[in-house]
């Protein structure tokens, strides 16, 4: 090992007047940043280990701690920025791929923030959600294209499986393995209480969670971990994961160190064996193969469950979606490139794929042009951060949204982006039992319920302002949006007018 060129990015500021040396920070930090100096009789810290997760800051009883960005600097250079130089140092030292977690932190345009929502004035009334019913219930699934009647002329009302959502927000896929047992339990409990769904991710379903089946979407990914008939029939829907927004085109790798007994049993793989998801499904090399898997899963569940196909938002997304809409799938889930991940190569996360707003707008429009929008429902994810993002997604044409990062933040995640280390101090992205128990599922699920209840209130207020009292009348209602500071091509893709037009 030569010289370490990397200077720690954070400084830990400890107010020694306030510090009572209770050593909570030391006990709480899985990264071993803090320790007690017996000679000096006071706490010290090794900031080079700090990931800035705020666990110590939040738990310090005297508020003696804060973490600040270091002002140590390279000679300023607009092209060769600090992180660019440091990445080169890292790779020159390790010879490896740079790993990263959560969604890209790079400064790409966030189109949600460049769209504004309408409201009624004079010519039609806004509606007060405290006085009038305001409906956010949504059904996901194929809509019948034809009315058939029985001998007495009554409409035959059978449908293929439909998912009923009381709010148009679901928790998107995070596997047991990438997140903890308690995090999974929090999501499952919250989904049940909210009348929506959480998603197992590709790691199978822990036997304790079968009881939440009617609010569960079970995933089938390229590794087929934990997939068996009971699993497929346990949930309300099945999702085929073709891709993920944070890492389109590549698979996944859960290191053997995380494959403890429970995870090994749930995934049906040997203890401490690496769980490697291949980049493609090796039985799907083309769209007609996808159709076969869709129908294989439908056969396995006797046509009672809708099948979701999840894809990453990539350049050709509208043609891909059009193919999926004709594959027998009931729902298409599209994951934008700002979406999160438990671990991904940083270069891929930060450079591959397209923003969900543009992908959604062009897919919705393409499916309508082809007259097949009714064949499928559209669910979008990849950085939905607030109720107004939800409103904008639905107005662009989504039936519902998937959230994951927002949900983890509600569970206490501080977006320190080191999930891949497995040392999550908040008990979320870790399998270390000592850390996992820090997340109380009762409290966690309550926070999730609170978050979505609050969002739903806000959604209703905004809908009422627009004079819309049912969410279906907002779906694809692009007149309710205006762009701000967008150029013509962006407006054209989004299918919206500019503010003032």
């Amino acid at each position, binding site marked *: 090992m030569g010289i370490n060129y990397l200077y720690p990015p954070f400084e830990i500021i400890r107010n020694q007047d306030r510090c009572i040396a209770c050593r909570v920070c030391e006990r709480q930090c899985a990264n071993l940043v803090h320790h007690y100096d017996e000679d000096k009789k006071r706490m010290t810290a090794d900031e080079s280990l700090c990931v800035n997760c705020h666990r110590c800051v939040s738990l310090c009883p005297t508020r003696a701690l804060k973490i600040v960005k270091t002002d140590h600097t390279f000679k300023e250079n607009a092209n060769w920025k600090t992180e660019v130089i440091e990445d080169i140092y890292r790779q020159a030292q390790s010879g490896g791929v740079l790993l990263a977690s959560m969604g890209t932190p790079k400064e790409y345009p966030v189109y949600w923030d460049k769209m504004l929502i309408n409201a009624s004035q004079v010519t*039609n009334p806004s509606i007060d959600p405290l006085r009038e019913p305001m409906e956010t219930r949504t059904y996901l699934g194929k809509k*019948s294209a034809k009315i058939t009647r029985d001998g007495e002329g009554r409409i035959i009302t059978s449908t293929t499986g439909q998912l009923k959502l009381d709010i148009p927000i679901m928790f998107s896929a995070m596997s047991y393995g990438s997140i903890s047992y308690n995090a999974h339990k929090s999501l499952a409990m919250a989904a049940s209480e909210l009348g929506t769904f959480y998603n197992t991710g590709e790691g199978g379903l822990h036997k304790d969670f079968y009881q939440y089946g009617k609010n569960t979407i079970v995933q089938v990914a390229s590794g087929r971990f934990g997939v068996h008939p009971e699993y497929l029939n346990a949930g309300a829907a099945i999702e085929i994961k073709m891709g993920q927004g944070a890492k389109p085109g590549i698979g996944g790798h859960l290191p053997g160190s995380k494959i403890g007994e429970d995870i090994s049993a749930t995934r049906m793989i040997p203890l401490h064996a690496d769980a490697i998801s291949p980049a493609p499904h090796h039985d799907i090399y083309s769209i007609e193969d996808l159709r076969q898997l869709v129908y294989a899963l439908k056969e396995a569940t006797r046509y009672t469950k809708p099948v979701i196909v999840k894809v990453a938002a990539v350049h050709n997304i509208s043609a891909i979606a059009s193919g999926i809409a004709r594959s027998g799938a009931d729902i298409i889930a599209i994951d934008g490139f700002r979406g999160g991940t438990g671990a991904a190569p940083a270069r891929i996360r930060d450079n591959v794929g397209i923003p969900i707003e543009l992908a959604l707008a062009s897919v919705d429009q393409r499916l309508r042009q082809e007259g097949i929008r009714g064949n499928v429902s559209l669910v979008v994810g990849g950085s939905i951060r607030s109720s107004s993002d939800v409103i904008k997604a639905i107005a662009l044409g989504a039936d519902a949204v998937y959230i994951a990062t927002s949900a983890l933040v509600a569970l206490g995640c501080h977006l320190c982006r080191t999930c891949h280390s497995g040392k999550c101090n908040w008990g979320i992205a870790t399998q270390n039992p000592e850390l996992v128990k820090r997340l109380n599922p009762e409290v966690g699920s309550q926070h999730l319920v609170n978050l979505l209840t609050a969002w739903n209130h806000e959604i209703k207020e905004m809908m009422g302002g627009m004079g819309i*009292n049912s969410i279906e*009348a907002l779906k*694809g209602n692009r007149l309710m949006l205006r762009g701000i500071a967008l150029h013509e091509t962006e407006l054209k893709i989004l299918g919206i007018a500019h503010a003032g037009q």
Partner: protein
Amino acid sequence: MDGCHQRIPLEGAFRNSSGCAISGIIDRSGKRFTAREAITSISVMHDRSNGLGGGFAGYGIYPEYKDYTALHIFYYSSEAKRACETFLEEHFDLINLSKIPTKKHPAITDVPLIWRYFVTALPTKLSFSQLDEDEYTARCVIRINREIEGAYVFSSGKDMGVFKAVGFPEDVGEFYMLDEYEGYSWTVHGRYPTNTPGWWGGSHPFSLLSYSVVHNGEISSYDANRRYIEMYGYACTLQTDTEVITYMIDYLHRRMGLTLEEVSHVLAAPFWSTIEQKEPKEREEYSYLRNTFASMLITGPFSIILGFKGGLMALNDRLKLRSLVAAEKAGRVYFASEEAAIRVIEPEPDRLWYPSGGKAVIVTLDSMQEGEEHGHQLSVSAL
């Protein structure tokens, strides 16, 4: 329509919302009467329009041509007329054609050429198209309106006709001399657009085949409805609520075969909480319709009177955010935005009521066979 006239953008180039007055009368015995009562009724609501649009739809007015489609067309140039007539000759047998008779009126200006054609689909073209006659006619109408600049078909039904213009509705009635037409039902519309349309095609009723709609309101679901219905071959060239509502009714009633009552359960679907209180069979049906046609739910204020062959249907939005009154006297049924507009022509109705939000009132001629309108019709007295 660029360049036809006007310095401001024409209807269709922008989204135009309107406040309005509507009125409708039907004689269930099928007895025919002139538009005079409709004119009187709408004139009481003068202040609900602003002189920027008015129009009528009459049913049963062309008994001598009842088997032929009556096309009413505005032309803004003789080139448009030539192009359109060439198109018509390629697609239809023209049984009769003439200018629609009008009378000069000081308040009705900028008059386009207004022609009427009684036509029937060319049998060879029709069979080659593999469409039924209605669908064939509808596609031809949509094509003319979308593709022939300066021509606009504003009425395309059988034994019915729309008469509309820019002006107050009572003046429009005089302009078209509607005293000289007799029908078993009439609807009428006075418009209060929030933009200046200046184009006759934008006035109401809006009509396709034998459906005509007069509407008061501004729907908040417009773009959701528009983008959905346009998947099925309709082109919303006017960007008005009435247009999209008419297309949805045509799609649901004619093409999907729903009854008008079922159509009302789609357009003004009850709240889920109401649906859940219904008997299991009904609940399933309501849920199915609402879910299957979710994108055709209309939100925001509206009251409409739909004219169709042999009847009228009145429908309010679910919250009843627009006024709509109904009344009945002997065999006659009246609808209007205001009670005064009914009382002025029928001072003492047997019954007068305010239909509940989302509850369709469907009235058909006594002579209509059970099931002719796909059954399930409620008689007025059962409401």
